């Protein structure tokens, strides 16, 4: 096992690399942590919806932790997380200048639209890749609106990056402490009625994704969902992070890390998951 030095990168001309990034900043914004890491090669290859596997430098922790890439500008990637376990506590403790061992970018990115209005739906820190996507859409002059939800005001993520790229942002909270009271899907009908939405993009907890997919389907829209599942490797070799995906009449277990994490909502066989209708 070779330990890379700061800035060192290895891999091929294209695709994922292993890179020793350098921490630019670690910042807490509300409930979530924003970690910015300088990793120019990895950043230059990153697309919205892709993720990075970060090594946790803690004794007893043997697996990396996957994080959706929230931004990848000027050689720096950003990830957003909730500190709730051994790995995320360790990352929250990092100081600027510290080295961080990264593997990425990994997985299939969102397929960006040809045109039309995009609706971006995010739950909690699942908003991260949607800010990245909104920036890409705005740069191409494509219109987007967004709905972001959380259980309560304190659990809402920082939406600055998202707001910069969308024409409208609707906020929902389960308890009504801010914005519309209810789930993100409770806010979808009004947005869909008011505007000519052409496609939906979502990221967040799996029950939310199932509901967003169903709402989109009901409205006759395609939805691309960035899923999550317990993942050991992130590179396609362990087969732990599978999602049941329809293939004609069959259901195939596809790897979220390499066949996803972005899947078409209509293809996911939710009834075969622990989040689907039983």
């Amino acid at each position, binding site marked *: 096992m070779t330990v890379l030095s700061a800035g060192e990168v290895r891999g091929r001309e294209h695709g*994922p690399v*292993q890179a020793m990034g350098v921490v630019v900043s670690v910042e807490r914004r509300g409930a979530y942590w924003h970690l910015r890491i300088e990793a120019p090669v990895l950043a230059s290859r990153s697309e919205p919806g892709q993720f990075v596997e970060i*090594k946790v430098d803690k004794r007893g922790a043997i697996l990396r932790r996957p994080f959706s890439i929230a931004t990848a500008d000027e050689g720096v990637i950003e990830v957003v997380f909730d500190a709730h376990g051994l790995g995320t506590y360790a990352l929250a403790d990092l100081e600027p200048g510290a080295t961080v061992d990264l593997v990425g970018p990994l997985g299939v990115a969102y397929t960006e639209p040809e045109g039309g209005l995009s609706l971006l739906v995010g739950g909690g820190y699942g908003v991260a890749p949607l800010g990245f996507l909104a920036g890409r859409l705005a740069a191409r002059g494509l219109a987007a609106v967004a709905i972001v939800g959380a259980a309560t005001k304190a659990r809402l993520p920082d939406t600055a990056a998202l707001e910069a790229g969308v024409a409208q942002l609707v906020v929902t909270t389960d308890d009504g402490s801010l914005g519309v009271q209810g789930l993100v899907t409770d806010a979808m009908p009004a947005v869909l009625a008011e505007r000519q939405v052409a496609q939906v993009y979502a990221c967040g907890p799996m029950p939310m994704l199932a509901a967003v997919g169903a709402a989109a389907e009901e409205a006759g829209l395609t939805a691309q969902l960035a899923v999550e599942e317990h993942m*050991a*490797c992130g*590179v396609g070799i*362990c087969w*732990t992070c*599978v999602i049941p995906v329809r293939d004609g009449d069959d259901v195939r277990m596809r790897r979220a890390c390499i066949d996803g994490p972005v899947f078409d909502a209509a293809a996911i066989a939710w009834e075969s998951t622990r989040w689907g209708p039983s």
Partner: protein
Amino acid sequence: MGEHALGSVMTSLPHDAVELAVDLGGVAMANPITTASGCFASGAEIDRFWDVNQLGALVVKSITLEPREGLPTPRMHETPSGMLNAIGLQNPGIDRWIANDLAWLRERGVTTIASVAGKSVHDYAEVTRRLQEAGGVAALEINLSCPNVEHRGLVFACSAPDSAEVMAAVRAETDRPLFAKLTSDVTDIVAIAGACLEAGATGLSLINTLLGMAIDPWTGKPRIHNTYGGLSGPAIRPVAIRNVHQVHQAFPQVPIIGMGGVRKVEDVIEFIRAGATAVAIGTAGFAEPFLGRDLIEELRGWLADRGVRKVSELRGAVEPW
């Protein structure tokens, strides 16, 4: 100081003077580093990072007669220095594996060891027959640690007669070297190993994961959907080393692929000293996609720095107290 105790007098060698090649029961390996079945798929994913034909051999994820979609999720849970998993042998089935994966492995010039799994003796024999017919695999690893549906869900490798029956059936179908993959979850692994060898196994792969369980204290649910899963990672390395040592002591001429918690070059040396001819990387490769390539170079450097000309000199070299 014993003959193979390093550290008394060390005369380092140039790196290129070190001989890493090993003969694994007729499989000519350029170096002793290989992969643990189920921890490297069939190689293409890691080939996105580096040329996997640098491995001494590549043991692929187990293949069954029919395609299998495997178990529901969650399939994985990390434990202190370990990992529990229950995948359920997800694989495309032997015919699609030969058409797609084996074709790719051959094109890339990978020394391939096919891992065969099955629910019945017939399944193992039929998969082996099709592999023999296809050609292009250097050896077969027979994964005996799957539930045997013909015998009330018991694991073949928990019974010497069941293991021997499978090994004899596959031996009849192929001229390739055969490695029996055994579990440590038995009373006497030496007896199972002996039965496999008598039935025609060339060597042994030691060890498969240890059966474990973890429960979420809040929800009360098992951490993985299957309730029980296989424990891997550094947590099981001492168990694996003990098994390799016991089997090597009993059958010193028999080639062994040693595995369980290998992460560092010192771990590779430890397995070779215990009696392994080849050493497989498993769970650590999930976190370190370059691990296989790194270990080949690090092994060369480690041996050169200590004046060990041939890696095989250290095989079974455990010094007495």
